[in-house]
């Protein structure tokens, strides 16, 4: 449970809290602390819902059938499916990159792989629902996700375009 990330955060908290105490005095320190504790408490039910949704979503979709749709010569639909697979299937980098390696091995082109990895890094449902929605305002998250939706597909098309012109060849 205790890892580098948690220790980093703890150090950041100590330093920033200490600096606020010194610069603004104990009153402001306690005021800020209590206000943020209250905010976290109000947020927790939403966080819990986000966790359940993110975990259950991975079981709703049939993985094999979806991966087959992103195979070779699947066109723009294939890019969209690859992006969605990257965004929705839960799991860390090890899982997603193996999934992508599998997709490429099954004959899909570089563009589908880029769409899948981009779908994951930009739109991972897990990270968006669990972390981003907890920290950042909901309307910000919504707009960012909507604007980002076409991006992995566009990146895939760009890769195909470059490949046709021979630029992206190894």
């Amino acid at each position: 449970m205790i890892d580098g990330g948690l220790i980093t955060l703890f150090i950041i908290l100590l330093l920033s809290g200490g600096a606020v105490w010194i610069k603004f005095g104990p009153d402001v320190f306690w005021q800020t602390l209590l206000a943020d504790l209250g905010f976290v408490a109000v947020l927790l039910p939403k966080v819990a819902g986000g966790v359940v949704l993110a975990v259950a979503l991975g079981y709703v979709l049939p993985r094999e059938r979806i991966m087959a749709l992103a195979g070779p010569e699947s066109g723009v639909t294939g890019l969209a499916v690859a992006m969605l697979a990257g965004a929705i299937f839960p799991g860390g980098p090890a899982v997603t990159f193996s999934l992508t390696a599998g997709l490429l091995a099954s004959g899909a082109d570089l563009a589908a792989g880029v769409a899948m990895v981009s779908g994951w890094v930009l739109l991972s449902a897990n990270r968006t629902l669990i972390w981003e929605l907890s920290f950042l305002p909901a309307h910000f998250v919504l707009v960012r996700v909507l604007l980002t939706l076409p991006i992995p597909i566009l990146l895939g098309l760009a890769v195909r375009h470059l490949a046709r012109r021979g630029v992206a060849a190894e």
Partner: protein
Amino acid sequence: MNILIGTILIWAGAVWALARVNRDHRSELRTIWQISLDTFLFMLPRLLLGMLSAGFLALLLPEDYVQRFLGESSGLTGLLIASLFGALTPGGPFVAFAIGASAIKAGATLGAITAYVTAWCIYSILRIISYELPMLGAAFTRTRLLVSLPVPILLGLLAPVVM
């Protein structure tokens, strides 16, 4: 109020997904609860530390600097700075999002934060070195990073138009 609506929407989605699982893969329900509980317990201390840090950092961030470099008048330069910071931010999502939250409180525009978050998503250095390069190879990684280059700026420009 905003949080209440968000909470209701998210739980509606969760109940829908659980109902689908209950219909098609009933045996997985226990696993889902277990993973959800583990994830929630993993998050709790990180969320708490991240939120409290974000609150303190927002007070400490020099507001005039944040507003000058990431605020309304910062324009394209602001988006470039935000993208660069995003690409260089190490650590997990809780670190990047906590920094984003404090920058918003200190007066950064939503466009700048969009560029920051997007660049962090695309260029997380540790993830590239430890996973992407070994598992997918240099040609793949280079191609993905190159075509993604304009994305943080592009989204940073579009975000304020929509919001």
